[in-house]
């Protein structure tokens, strides 16, 4: 029972997700399934972002960088054997002339994203919070300029088409569940708790012997790996890779999802992505038109974006800390036993102390 209680915050997220996916798989149309798969991939990315931003309190605008790096890396390895030597002639010969199996390609691509996150983190994590935020944005700009001009390797701003499409809704769900578990295990681990402590009070955390630099770097690297996974999923879901897709639009959408859900908890990330994805899809369908009885109804084109913005504003006005308000879903019948969840308890205490300040 106790283990169930400990794992409840994860189960409470994964089980409903699996239920929804099962329903969609059984009864939904191909369109709904595709949109849901995309939402799950966004969820993987959002959780990657959460691992760093949620735990450290530093919003990163640059995680699309790792997504793009992994997506391009897997495209180089698995895409278009016929066209590759012509359009991506600048690739090293062994990549250009060979096509690699999907799983090793995915793993090396995720690895590359993680390595880049670690290397860039070595420098960026020395900066203090707001500077670190902006520097991640700079990182994304650097990558964007390089990849959209490195024509012989990335095809410049043109789209790479023809990656094998293997990401089904179940694969996306599996990956989402995996990263939820990873994120949870990390946030209740020693390093996760230390990072959360720095988020609540940098000075106190440092005074207690926590290294700001290392605790942030570890989270940044881990989230780089997860963002890389999202990139691979995205590439093999779309079948196309284009640098335009890994830029500001997508970044801000996912950051907005995190903020709406509640940046400071894993449940917030999941709820935010789900909620915004549902709103977008619902009103997009309303734009296309639907029938009530014999009446055909539709809302004017472009109103989906307006409604989305309006809903976001309302939530931010009335629930400043997001829908979940920074809380995890908890076992509702638990008798508080500080022995088992001491660490989490402390952080919660620290936060409530912070609130009362």
């Amino acid at each position, binding site marked *: 029972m106790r283990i169930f209680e400990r794992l409840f915050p994860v189960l409470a997220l994964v089980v409903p997700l699996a239920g929804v996916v099962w329903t969609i798989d059984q009864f939904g149309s191909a*369109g709904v399934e595709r949109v849901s798969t995309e939402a799950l991939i966004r969820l993987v990315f959002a959780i990657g972002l959460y691992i760093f931003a949620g735990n450290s309190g530093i919003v990163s605008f640059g995680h699309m960088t790792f997504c793009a790096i992994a997506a391009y890396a897997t495209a180089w390895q698995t895409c278009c054997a016929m*066209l590759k030597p012509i*359009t991506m002639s600048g690739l090293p010969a062994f990549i250009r002339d060979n096509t690699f199996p999907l799983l090793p390609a995915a793993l090396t691509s995720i690895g590359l994203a993680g390595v880049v996150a670690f290397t860039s983190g070595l420098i960026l994590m020395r900066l203090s919070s707001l500077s670190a935020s902006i520097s991640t944005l700079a990182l994304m700009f650097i990558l964007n300029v390089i990849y959209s001009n490195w024509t012989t390797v990335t095809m410049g701003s043109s789209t790479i*088409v*023809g990656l094998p499409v293997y990401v089904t809704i179940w694969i996306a769900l599996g990956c989402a569940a995996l990263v939820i578990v990873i994120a949870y295990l990390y946030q209740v681990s020693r390093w996760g708790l230390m990072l959360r402590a720095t988020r609540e009070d940098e000075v106190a955390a440092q005074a207690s012997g926590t290294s700001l630099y290392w605790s942030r770097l570890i989270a940044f690297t881990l989230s780089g790996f997860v963002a890389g996974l999202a990139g691979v999923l995205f590439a093999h879901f779309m079948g196309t890779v*284009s640098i335009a897709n890994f830029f500001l639009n997508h970044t801000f959408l996912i950051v907005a999802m995190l903020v709406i859900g509640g940046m400071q908890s894993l449940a917030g990330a999941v709820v935010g992505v789900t909620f915004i994805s549902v709103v977008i899809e619902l009103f997009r369908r309303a734009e296309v038109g639907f*029938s009530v009885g014999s009446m055909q109804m539709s809302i004017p084109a472009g109103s989906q974006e307006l409604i989305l913005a309006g809903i976001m504003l309302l939530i931010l006005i009335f629930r400043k800390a997001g829908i979940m308000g920074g809380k995890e879903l908890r076992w509702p019948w638990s008798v508080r036993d500080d022995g088992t969840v001491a660490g989490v308890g402390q952080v919660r205490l620290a936060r409530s102390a912070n609130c009362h300040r």
Partner: protein
Amino acid sequence: MKTLRHLICAGLAFALSSSSALSQDAKEPIKVGFATALSGWLAAYDEEPHKAAVMKIEEINKAGGVLGRPIEYKVLDTKTDLTLTGSVASELVDWGANMLVVPPDYDYGSPAALVAQNAGLIAISTGASDPKMGAQGVGPNVFTAHSASQISGITSAEYAYDKMGARTAYMLEDVSIEATKAACAGFIAAWEKKGGKLLGRDTFQKEDASIAAQVTRIKGLETPPDMMFLCATMPQGPAAVRQLRAANIDMPIFADTGMGGDFWLGGVPGLKDFYVPAIMSIKGDPRPEIQKFLAAYKARWGTLPVSEFSVLGYCTIEQWTAAVEKAQSTDTEAVLAVMNQFKDQPTTCGPTSYTPEMHIQVDRPLLVSKVVDGSFEAVEIFRNSFAPDFKLLFRVSQ
């Protein structure tokens, strides 16, 4: 837009009610899915071809349909969003589309085309000018109704050499856009093939507000060239033309297809000796089929199209239904076999040819137009004789 949506809704409702009532008698309709950018920046290029395609479907239905079956269509907005483009395409596949019409741009059309390819359907882009929207790129089921970007360069080179006696040329290239770079590649290849002499070439970027340095270098040439090819498009193109003419560089200038259209000519008063190889001319096109198309468009939508690309949407439906008629089936394999053998198949846009390898037009005649008194005037229809090979189409050595 609203009227269009109402019409579609009404059409669908009618189709639904009639199919339920007459399901035994009526033949099953042929379904065409449109993944179309009705909002976002691509809408400026997609809306008119789309309207033209809808018009063609209505004409076909009025004349009794294809294979005796009416055509039903469904439109979903891609919002110029890469991911959504793929999603709406799969929704259309799910709806039971027999073929997909996808946006007129390689980058923003390929996600939809790929969905069609993977679902075993034919996809035709109304206006992609990149050969990657075809057999070697997205896949063997994917076509584009447009000519390759290189063709406007090739046509300019051959027309200037053959018809205007130009022997020396200069080339000014906007290197920030793929299509204009392709047009320049086509010009160089055809000009060298003709035996013309290239006195020099220069580049600029869309960020460059002034091309004074480039102008100085042209002025510094020992002998002024007989003509200049300017591969640029909106909005950099007109600025470049103004600066060239202001510096008294007055040789004939040929420009890329995207520079057609009268709307920018007010910015360069008194412009002359300026040529553009265009798909068609909205006013004064010499071809009766284009005149007919324009009149029908105006009658259907209340106004003439603004862009010359509009007619490509009309031809998209025209060529696919022609192939369906010939194949006597909407089956992808059968239609594909017919389309791959199109050799100068007559369409409103001009003769259309495909081969299993080449799914883009490489020698469709273009209408060479010239600026006279502040507007473009058709000069003549010109068909290039030099056909680009794959190396040139994919710009391998660039």
